């Protein structure tokens, strides 16, 4: 952790508003991006981010300096997002899932592809909400199946099966994207002198 951040955190613990503002501005776009991954709307992401920041400032004394501050803030954001997700789950209908599996050829093609953020967001948002949540918690945010089961209030085997199905769907979406990108690349290369 750099000295500037250390100093900032100390001043934040003393509830110095200018330091809190500086800390917020340093990490706000990361926190908001994390919140956006777990919801479909910017308004809800803003609510999640606001709650998360209030928690960060109120519980800053619990943060241990030998840990990554960014990781600590991310965990708080993910936990807040999951609380929102579970609250909304009561009002959501079951997602109908149509499984489309990628062929080995598709997967080979996706290996070489360099996906843009827009493509990644498109692929993630194409997943059913339940699969997407488990895939993000496991693959991106690094939670174990046991932790995911506790967070979502489901069985460990449900977490495992949702990850497995989610991964298959995600792979096929990414493979399809790389296949679509390929002809465009070839056409672009043909036009080059």
């Amino acid at each position, binding site marked *: 952790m750099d000295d500037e951040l250390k100093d900032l955190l100390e001043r934040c613990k003393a509830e110095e508003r200018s330091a809190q503002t500086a800390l917020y501005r340093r990490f706000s776009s990361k*926190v908001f991006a994390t919140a956006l991954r777990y919801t479909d709307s910017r308004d809800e*992401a*803003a609510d999640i981010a606001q709650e998360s920041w209030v928690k960060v400032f109120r519980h800053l004394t619990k943060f241990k300096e030998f840990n990554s501050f960014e*990781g600590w803030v*991310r965990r708080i954001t993910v936990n807040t997002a999951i609380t929102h997700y579970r609250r909304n789950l009561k009002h959501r209908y079951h997602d109908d899932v149509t499984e489309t599996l990628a062929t080995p050829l598709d997967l080979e093609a*996706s290996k070489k592809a360099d996906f843009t953020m827009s493509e990644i967001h498109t692929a993630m948002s194409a997943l059913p909400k339940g699969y997407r949540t488990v895939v993000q918690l496991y693959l*991106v945010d*690094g939670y174990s199946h046991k*932790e995911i089961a506790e967070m979502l209030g489901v069985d460990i085997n449900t977490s495992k099966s949702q990850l497995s199905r989610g991964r298959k769907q995600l792979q096929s979406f990414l493979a399809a994207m790389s296949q679509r990108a390929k002809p465009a690349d070839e056409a672009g290369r043909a036009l080059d002198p």
Partner: protein
Amino acid sequence: MTTNDFSPGHVPHLEPGDAPWTDAELQLREKLLADESVPPASLEADIWSAMDRPSAPVSSGRFVALAVASGLAALAWFWPADVSETVDAKQAPTIQEATHVGDKMASGVQEEATIDDEALAPLLEAAPEEVASDVARSAPSEMPDGNGAQHDEGMTSIQGLGVSELKGGNEGERFPLKQDSTPVQQERREATLEVKQ
């Protein structure tokens, strides 16, 4: 939740039997972890206003909930005891003397009612005198003379039924009820009745 590792080189552990992470998945992970998105401009002001809002500490909320719960528990524990004491001390009905309604009706005697319930006493005292006089007018004068005595006689007959008249009833025989020529001497005693819950 201490297993999270957001370092770029870290790959989440897979269960035995799971397919290994594909390059596309790992690329997706790296890019999503590094992703940034500019929040709405109003968010910062919303955070400060939420921070400035006084919030009740969790511990005091728990304390209030605990106090309410223990109060209810204490109330539930002592409530039945209080009720029984009240009934025993104040509201236990006491039969002082068996009286025959007919006697009073016939003689037209009006007795003052004793009100045990202290709470009702002021209400009854405040009742208009007209009501009391209406009651006095309607009850004894409309009853023909002698009815009370006849009713009393019937009561005596039943009460004075000799035990011997019931013999054989257990064997299915029917005996006509006869009136004893010499009614059994009645003894009236004071009785008290206790109601316990």
